[in-house]
């Protein structure tokens, strides 16, 4: 039997899917910022020190850039992937040059992925402000791997974690029209 029902996967009326190329574009910009952050941390590991005041560590290039990265993840996680700043760049600059998306994607998994990115970069920022350079490097390296997989391979690690949590019943699915 080959069913002829309407495609159940297309965005339903009243629901909003996202162009899957948007989050991937955003991951590429995130990957670049994370690479610069790694260079800051590795090039001058003594800039962060536990003998500095928190404000002194915060005001280093590594501290400022990591604050920016964390803030971007926070917007994606709490305002939703549809309101992501890099998504806005994608919509304004990149998408008009591409063909229309063949399919839309559920916004919830990439939004959750932003939350994971936020938690990891926030942990890195806490390490940085406390002057623990190695901890900050490890956190940024984890974020780097995830952004790399998303950007280069189109594999969203955070989205897979979301699916597993839904499956385990830890995260509720909620209504798709949210």
């Amino acid at each position: 039997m080959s069913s002829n029902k309407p495609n159940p996967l297309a965005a339903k009326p009243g629901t909003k899917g996202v162009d899957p190329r948007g989050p991937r574009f955003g991951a590429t910009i995130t990957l670049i910022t994370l690479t610069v952050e790694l260079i800051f941390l590795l090039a001058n590991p003594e800039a962060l020190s536990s003998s500095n005041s928190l404000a002194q560590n915060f005001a280093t290039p590594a501290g400022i850039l990591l604050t920016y990265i964390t803030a971007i993840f926070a917007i994606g996680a709490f305002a939703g992937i549809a309101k992501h700043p890099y998504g806005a760049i994608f919509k304004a600059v990149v998408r008009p040059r591409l063909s229309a998306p063949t399919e839309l994607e559920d916004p919830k998994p990439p939004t959750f992925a932003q939350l994971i990115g936020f938690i990891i970069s926030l942990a890195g920022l806490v390490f940085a402000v406390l002057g623990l350079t190695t901890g900050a490097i490890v956190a940024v390296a984890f974020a780097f791997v995830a952004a790399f997989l998303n950007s280069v391979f189109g594999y969203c690690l955070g989205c897979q974690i979301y699916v597993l949590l839904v499956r385990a019943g830890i995260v509720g699915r909620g209504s798709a029209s949210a």
Partner: protein
Amino acid sequence: MDLSLILLLIGGLIVVSTALGLIIKAAEGRVKKQDGLTRIDPSALGEGIEFGKIGTLLQFSSEFCTKCPGTRKYLEQVAKDHPGVSHVDVDLTNRQDLAQQFNILQTPTTFILDDSGAIAARIGGSPRPEAVTAGLEIAIKREHDSYVI
């Protein structure tokens, strides 16, 4: 820190990430032979669903799944090319019970059922053409691990 050491560390991260990505991609769309002991009742999937006389390509999809429509189109064509083989697409969005029962961790996931409705093989992700052919062969010849009459 020395510039060459910085490049080495970042290069190392790129190598690790690339290796991870290649491993993930290599596992996608490949056929995995099943034991053939789990038989699916078509009525459990939804009303009016019927399986093929020879075999069935049972696709599980979800809402807003980027690779599902392409998979659907491809498997429909395979079913058309093989008389007796049918394609069934089940949306898991409101069927978490099925996802749990069959341990489906990604969509699309495709089960290849034999003529009795037993799961002969499964493919996670966008199926490769050779994986579908191999899966159908397992189902039609009943080469799954332990068929019980």
